[in-house]
């Protein structure tokens, strides 16, 4: 079985889905001839041509807006936003239209659309190239929010996202793009949306983390009897898996690289407080980035939760 990094795994998912179904088309800035700035779509232009690998003008709003129209017409567009920080220009299209057209038309029109965007910090890139604002999308009903944490799940989740009948925001942790290689089977397999994955079983503390933080969490919990949960889909969230784990362990640490206030960790903490407070042996603690803008390279490692900070927090929670 081939060892692939996440870029290659996503590329393989796109290639196989395009081969399987001619409704799948890709559009975005530099996704065609150039193969995308991270080379995620490399080789696809030669294989599928300009009709299905659409190099668009520099227009985030129209990329997503046109993809909405394509989806309404019956295609399965996969739109790439070059960096998550540029998706803000397309919020109107995602929030006012992609998320709502099914509801607005009472299912007469649907939007089977995937918006892919590289996201997250730690890649020495300019401002707005390292955002982690996934919680924005989780507030809006009608869009799913999916974040892979490695090559294997990235391929399987993207296949599910492309086949999903509703819009999916697919956020790819750029720091992991080439950091991890895993066995990624060719051919069909899907990782279901809306289902969390227990990455490591344990009985004394539950740690939940997604995207690039999972890799750090796995290092941080070495030596602890920790259960690690990777939600994979933030919206809709798999509350059953999380709550079952917390009821078992009695402790919860939430780790995300997004800023603390209003991050998705707040939703998790509030839900656990409401649904499982009597099972808790320690306060629910969030390890997140501070409420400042993502700094550039010189400071970014002071900003992102480090393995040490995560380990220290797990330790405190265990000793509480």
């Amino acid at each position: 079985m081939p060892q692939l990094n996440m870029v290659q795994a996503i590329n393989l998912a796109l290639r196989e889905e395009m081969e399987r179904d001619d409704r799948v088309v890709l559009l975005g800035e530099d996704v065609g001839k150039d193969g995308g700035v991270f080379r995620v779509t490399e080789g696809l232009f030669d294989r599928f041509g300009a009709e299905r690998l659409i190099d668009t003008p520099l227009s985030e709003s129209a990329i997503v807006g046109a993809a909405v129209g394509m989806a309404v017409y019956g295609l399965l567009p996969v739109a790439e936003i070059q960096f998550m920080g540029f998706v803000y220009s397309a919020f109107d299209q995602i929030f006012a239209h992609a998320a709502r057209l099914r509801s607005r038309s009472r299912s007469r029109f649907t939007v089977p659309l995937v918006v892919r965007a590289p996201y997250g910090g730690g890649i020495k890139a300019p401002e707005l190239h390292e955002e982690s604002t996934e919680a924005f999308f989780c507030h809006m009903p009608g869009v799913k929010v999916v974040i892979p944490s490695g090559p294997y799940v990235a391929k399987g989740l993207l296949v599910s996202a492309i086949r999903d009948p509703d819009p999916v925001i697919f956020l790819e942790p750029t720091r992991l793009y080439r950091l991890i290689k895993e066995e990624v089977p060719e051919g069909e397999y899907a990782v279901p949306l809306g289902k969390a994955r227990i990455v490591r079983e344990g009985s004394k503390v539950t740690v939940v983390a997604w995207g690039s933080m999972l890799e750090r969490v796995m290092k941080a919990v070495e030596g602890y009897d920790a259960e690690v949960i990777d939600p994979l889909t933030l919206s809709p969230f798999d509350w059953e898996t999380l709550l079952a784990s917390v009821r078992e362990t009695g402790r919860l640490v939430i780790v995300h690289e997004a800023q603390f206030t209003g991050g998705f960790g707040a939703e998790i903490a509030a839900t656990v407080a409401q649904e499982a407070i009597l099972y808790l042996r320690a306060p629910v603690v969030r390890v997140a980035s501070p409420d400042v803008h993502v700094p550039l390279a010189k400071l970014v490692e002071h900003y992102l939760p480090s393995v040490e900070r995560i380990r220290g927090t797990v330790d405190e929670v265990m000793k509480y």
Partner: protein
Amino acid sequence: MPEETIATFTVRSLRILDERGKADEALMPPLSEADIRQMYELLVLTRTYDERALALQREGRIGTYPPVKGQEAVQVGSACALFPTDWVVPSFREMGVHFTLGYPLDLMFRYWAGDERGLVTPANLNILPICVSVGTHIPHAVGIAMAAKYRRDPVAVVAYFGDGATSKGDFHEGFNMAGVFQLPVVFICQNNQWAISIPLKGQTASRTLAQKAIAYGFDGVQVDGNDVFAVYRATKDAVEKARSGGGPTFIECLTYRVADHTTSDDASRYRSPEEVAAWREKDPILRLERYMSGRGLWDEGYGAEVKRKATRAVDEAVKAMESAAPPEPGEMFEHVSATLGQRQEKQRFVDHPPAPS
């Protein structure tokens, strides 16, 4: 290299029927007497619906409503040029387009009365739901046109919007993309001179809106929007061009919003009664009546019969709207996504249970 002019452009304006109802026969599109009568009946139907909607709102029987009055010719004239296979991407003040294409009046009433099931477009029509967020639907028309082109389907996609929308970013992004890919899309602007309280000169320093198309690499034409024949002809030319691979067209229709922006607006705060009165004189229905009268196609008896027929249709639609069962609370969960998440399931069945039957 000397300084030289490298581009010049012209903007054409089209009017066939003047205010006294006299038509330029050389420009008249091929329309039978039956076609013209049908256009007239649709104009009257649209106005009758509109007047009733306004009255129903004042009586508290429907919600906020954006009147169409004065703009009927843009809507009926353009929609008459469409095929059932074409796609329409409307904003929120084009009910005449809907009715011309056969959208049921009672469904439209239900929508304005706050029942979202009113936006379920009948299966035989390709009309996207009403879009209240100004101009943001323009890229959808572009995407539909991209998909149709990919599928080699000979369809035209028509997006409707107002003059205010031309100031939005999505107007630029959508027009630009349509030009780059030479898509089968027709952009129809109902330039009704006002975006709530902001007059056209507050939206743009451009002499015409039509000329904006030139910068995007396709044709822009200005037509008299109160002239149903001019609108029909310009639209017919544009959709035929689109269906045969000729690319996009922008049609600026000069018209006027005779009524308030919506039932929540009071236009007397920002514009003069003289201005409104002058535009009432250019009324599109009056103009067509004068033309038809001169051709022996209209007399008071026929006019009264058309009005009676329209009133009957509107009466029946009001009855159908008011006798429709209200939606169940669970209905708001049914169309958020194909399947509900765990939390939505709980919200629907535990927090907002169906009413006991």
